[in-house]
């Protein structure tokens, strides 16, 4: 199954998409994905229940987060209340290695996103901070990438032995599914997503449309 692992809704300060419109768009336009993960900026949305919406459109809707570290932005999958209490999701200067340690301790996973992007991507900070401990997966295809950003990300991943995922980083409805990640096994919960990612059973899909 194919999931877009990096999306934003109106819950993010710069997101303009309603989740129901993502669902309607995917089905109306036959976007080739089976679901998506909402990774709102610097927060985790415990409140929203998208179960009914997911069922109505036969889609998997999962929740994660996009936090900000000294290495740039990082997706967090498998967020639980204990993990949310372990560090300040709202901070813009989290230490990446501490985020990874907290994730490991709570069955979650931290994945640096758009690592080839100036300013907010991991590769821009390697010279200053060195190679961080604990990174195993990075986002190598991002729907918002410009120029050679994805190539920089892929090169970094190859050199450092990281696996790669794909996500659209959509902020408006029509950008969802531009990049995604394919899993050979069903992924219907956040826990299954973390398990599949940790097992390395996935493949990144580059921009399709």
């Amino acid at each position, binding site marked *: 199954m194919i999931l877009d692992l990096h999306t934003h809704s109106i819950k993010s300060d710069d997101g303009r998409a309603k989740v129901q419109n993502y669902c309607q768009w995917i089905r109306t336009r036959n976007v080739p994905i089976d679901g998506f993960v909402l990774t709102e900026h610097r927060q985790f949305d415990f409140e929203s229940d998208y179960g009914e919406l997911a069922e109505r459109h036969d889609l998997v809707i999962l929740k994660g987060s996009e936090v900000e570290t000294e290495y740039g932005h990082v997706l967090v999958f498998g967020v639980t209340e204990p993990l949310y209490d372990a560090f300040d999701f709202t901070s813009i200067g989290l230490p990446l290695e501490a985020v990874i340690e907290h994730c490991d301790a709570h069955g979650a996973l931290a994945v640096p996103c758009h690592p080839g992007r100036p300013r907010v991507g991991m590769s821009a*900070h390697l010279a200053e901070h060195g190679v961080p401990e604990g990174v195993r997966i990075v986002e190598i295809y991002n729907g918002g990438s410009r120029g050679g950003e994805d190539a920089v990300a892929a090169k970094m991943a190859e050199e450092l032995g990281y696996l790669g995922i794909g996500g659209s980083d959509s902020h408006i409805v029509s950008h969802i599914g531009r990049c995604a990640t394919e899993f050979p096994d069903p992924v219907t919960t956040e826990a299954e997503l973390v398990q599949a990612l940790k097992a390395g059973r996935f493949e990144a899909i580059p921009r399709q449309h």
Partner: protein
Amino acid sequence: MAEQEAVDEDIKDLRERFLNREFDEVTFEIDGSRFAEYAKVCGETAPKFTDPSHPDFQAPPTFVSTLVGGRNTPPDFPNLGGMGMDAGKGVEWKAPVRDGATLTGRSHLHDIYTKTGRSGRMVFLVTRMELFDQEGTHIANADTRTVIRERPRG
């Protein structure tokens, strides 16, 4: 972590001191020839936007963004030390802007928030100008998002 929390305290302080506090009032005499040119250069083809003789001649809704551009922050707002760049614009349209109208624009800071940047924080300021006509009717809001890339600390 403690240092980061302390850094964000300054944003909380700025929000408490400056959000929703009107800091500027400007009067605009609306010139139909200016908004007709704006319409044409932007690619509008409808005569109501481009032809002053049209009975419903009015400015394109986005024209009010061109009225913003003076003061974006209160006079006592601190200098955050970086160059401000235009990160985005928004318009809420409520009624047409006509040739010859006198509009009053009242500005306040609508939001202040931060994100990370390569060499420090990026502070986003959302300045909202509320526009009123001669009768005091609220005709539009024009938002400007300015991003300030702070210089590294220390």
